[in-house]
């Protein structure tokens, strides 16, 4: 319903061997970047440069799709990205490298949005937030939504001191402007990189509230994905599970939500270990 065009860099796995792009009008081939190519490097390592941490594939420095130098702000994020590259076997499966994709998006900003545009895009999801948009029938599903989603809405209302509510109307919930303002100013406290991650998680889960639940460590990724897919899970319980579709989508959503959440935390952390002296 409220789908939006995925960012340029979200690559879907190809159903057939990559390399054949779609044929445009007049018979010319339009460019489609390959979703898989052979692993061409032996060693992956990290080094610290002027702009941040860099990834080295053998002697070459990793670059973004727009040919910028690939730099990340924290060492932990660099290690995680390096691990993604190192775990590729014979072929590089770009569609499994979610952290790399997120870094590329943050560095290139292909949709060319500034901070306020990103925040507004995120808060806009609140109008059609999945967990505020309720059904009236079947009664069992309505009951399930009430039992599973109401506590999360209540948590968000308490945590952010706002009114959200839920609705069975086709127009969706009526979110007061003050609520939106609160979320806008809250999101403004995150840096640009973290915001890219937050907007990504919201787009994947189709819910701002569930995403904030993840960012605030109130629920785990598995729980957030379950709540996002509540209706699917209900139908699976009723009609049965289809592994090549349901489990496939479940794993993909979990991977993306986990990557986005980790990305946000790794971009906004400032950890320091205080060593206390032992007192006798």
């Amino acid at each position, binding site marked *: 319903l409220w789908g939006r065009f995925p960012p340029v860099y979200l690559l879907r*796995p190809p*159903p*057939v*061997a990559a390399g054949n792009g779609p044929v445009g009008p007049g018979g010319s081939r339009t460019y489609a970047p390959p979703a898989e190519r052979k*692993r061409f490097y*032996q*060693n*992956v*390592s*990290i080094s610290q440069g002027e702009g941040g941490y860099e990834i080295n594939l053998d002697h070459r420095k990793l670059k973004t799709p727009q040919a910028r130098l690939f730099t990340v702000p924290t*060492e*932990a994020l660099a*290690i*995680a990205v*390096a*691990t993604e590259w*190192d*775990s*590729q*076997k014979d072929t590089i*499966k770009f569609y*499994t490298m*979610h*952290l790399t994709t997120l870094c590329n998006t943050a560095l290139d900003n292909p949709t060319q949005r500034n901070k306020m545009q990103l925040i507004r895009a995120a808060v806009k999801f609140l109008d059609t937030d999945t967990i505020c948009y309720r059904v009236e029938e079947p009664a069992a599903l309505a009951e399930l939504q009430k039992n599973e989603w109401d506590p999360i809405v209540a948590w968000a209302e308490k945590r952010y001191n706002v009114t959200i509510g839920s609705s069975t109307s086709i127009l969706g919930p009526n979110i007061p402007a003050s609520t939106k303002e609160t979320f806008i100013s809250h999101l403004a406290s995150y840096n640009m990189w973290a915001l890219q991650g937050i907007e990504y998680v919201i787009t994947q889960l189709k819910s701002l509230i569930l995403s904030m639940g993840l960012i605030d*460590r*109130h*629920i*785990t*990724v*598995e*729980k957030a994905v379950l709540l996002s897919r509540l209706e699917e899970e209900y139908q699976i319980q009723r009609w049965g599970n289809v*592994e*090549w579709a349901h*489990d*496939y989508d479940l*794993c*993909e959503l*979990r*991977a993306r939500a*986990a*990557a986005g*959440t*980790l990305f946000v*935390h*790794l971009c906004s*952390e400032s*950890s320091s*270990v205080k060593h*206390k002296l032992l007192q006798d």
Partner: protein
Amino acid sequence: MAVLGSPLRTLRALLRELRQASGGTGRPYRDTPAYRHILAAFRAHRVTSEKLCRAQQELHFQAATYLCLLRSVREHAALHQEYHGKGERSPEEVAGLVGFRLPQQPGGKG
């Protein structure tokens, strides 16, 4: 706060995932920066005088999230390989599905 379970369990599962993920160069997985970083982080936060240490919980949540990421990526890749990784069938195979055989044309087509 999210329900996470025992940190030891998360750590062991995470290290197991790392072992499964490392397969590129044949270097032992204990040698990788990720392994060392995770162990160092867990060790640094092990001893704390507080009962409810916020930094510890943050680290545990991060570790659990990373574990979810590694596990889901591996499972997704396996599912893709099994169900969507085979590509198209050749014309011979398609004909064979309904019991036909393609004709042999020694001079080529047309």
